[in-house]
């Protein structure tokens, strides 16, 4: 299942070696433990630089969007195996 979303989420993160590592996220009243951060990339929205984190747990792939100006996290993509 592959879904494009734009849902606000809560994320706990760790800061290490000048990098941000999402650890857990809460979406739809449910907590997900992030197992791996697979890729981080950035994109521009005008003058704003947006960060995207491609992360996964044991069964799901999530693409998280961080707006550093608003300090807002959103879940923008979900892929579930099978």
């Amino acid at each position, binding site marked *: 299942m592959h879904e494009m979303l734009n849902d606000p989420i809560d994320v706990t993160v760790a800061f290490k070696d000048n990098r941000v590592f999402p650890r857990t996220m809460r979406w739809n009243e449910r907590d997900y433990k992030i197992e791996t951060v697979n*890729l981080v990339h950035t994109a521009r929205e005008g003058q704003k630089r947006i960060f*995207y984190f491609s992360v996964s747990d044991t069964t799901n*792939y999530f693409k998280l969007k961080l707006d550093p100006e608003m300090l807002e996290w959103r879940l923008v993509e979900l*892929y579930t195996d099978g």
Partner: protein
Amino acid sequence: MHRIILHIDMNSYFASVEQQANPFLRGKPIGITGKDQERSVVATASIEAKKLGVKTAMSTWEAKKICPSLILYAGDPEKYSDIMHRFNAIYQEFTPHVEPFSVDESFLDITEEAEDFFGATYMAQMIRTRLKEELGNHITASIGIAPNKLMAKLACETVKPSGLTVVQPEELIDLLNRCKLDDLCGIGPRILKRLHALDIKTFAELRACPLEDLQREFKSYGLWLHEAAYGRDSSQGVNANSSDAKSYGHSYTLPENTQDQTVLKRYLFGLADKVGWRMRRDGVVARRITAHVRFGDFTSHSEQRTVNTPTADGMDLFKISWNIVKPLLTSDVRLVGLSASMLTKNPSQPSLFKKERNMQSVLCALDSLQHRYGTGVWKRGATLPLNLKQRSSGFHFDHEV
């Protein structure tokens, strides 16, 4: 002394990036497509999909027919562009002489840094390690090392994926003898056909053909073919400042084939505005505009116009390209596109005419908005879909207006 050139090509680039991002796509045949997957082509097939017969630029329905288990995945150009900047930044750690050749390929001149081919091999391995650290295990690269760009690219193509091929000056002829003519960058289907007509089917036969005969058939390109047959590359070396665009263009595959001029105008106008904005953002104007149409039967037509007054205004670009496209609308259109070339730096000279000066200041204000909030913050009314709704109130006194 020979130069030492590295050609680095990311393997199945778009697909590898998606497999790096999403572990559930790894080891599976995937094809990266446009947004509308049904009418799109496979821009990149994963290594697994290639093994099952899927090829780059194959239409999605054909790819699905060949490989029913193929997972089609809409591409994310911003992501690929960001990663491209990151791997080119890694190359810059090793040499300042880096020439990006395409979104997933670059040439590096490491003559001074590597000193010899052994040093070059060691450096190639170090680059590969850095790529893995920065981007992950699944975005891999093939590397070719040779005395010039042409041969480095050919060497790179010989072992994929994750190959590392070193071709020293004395091995160039041997490499060419093992390759087909069209393996070489610069020999496309048309040149190949003309070479076959001259009964030239191998590099050995190309070398045996007198230069005069090649020049008679191919004019100035004959010399290039003659030199290439010996593994010589007459082009300039690695040009680290070659990032200036030669042209700007956009094309769009319509959701369904149509001959409707209103619909086609709307899409072409939208494309012209996109091209115009990118040129103004980069401070260039164009004198040549090329319009491109692909019809429902997959035949294509493109035509160009050269104008006296260079422009970067979407309205001008649209008018010129529509004049090209309009007479061609004799059957259903599948794709429209336009590109602008013959670029010069915009001298920012104000027009003599008030109307044009007003339009320039409007564009300037709209560009400031796009700079601040991003592309797509404004659209012309003419590019929006027309959706006339039935009246829900009133006495219909305007029915004759």
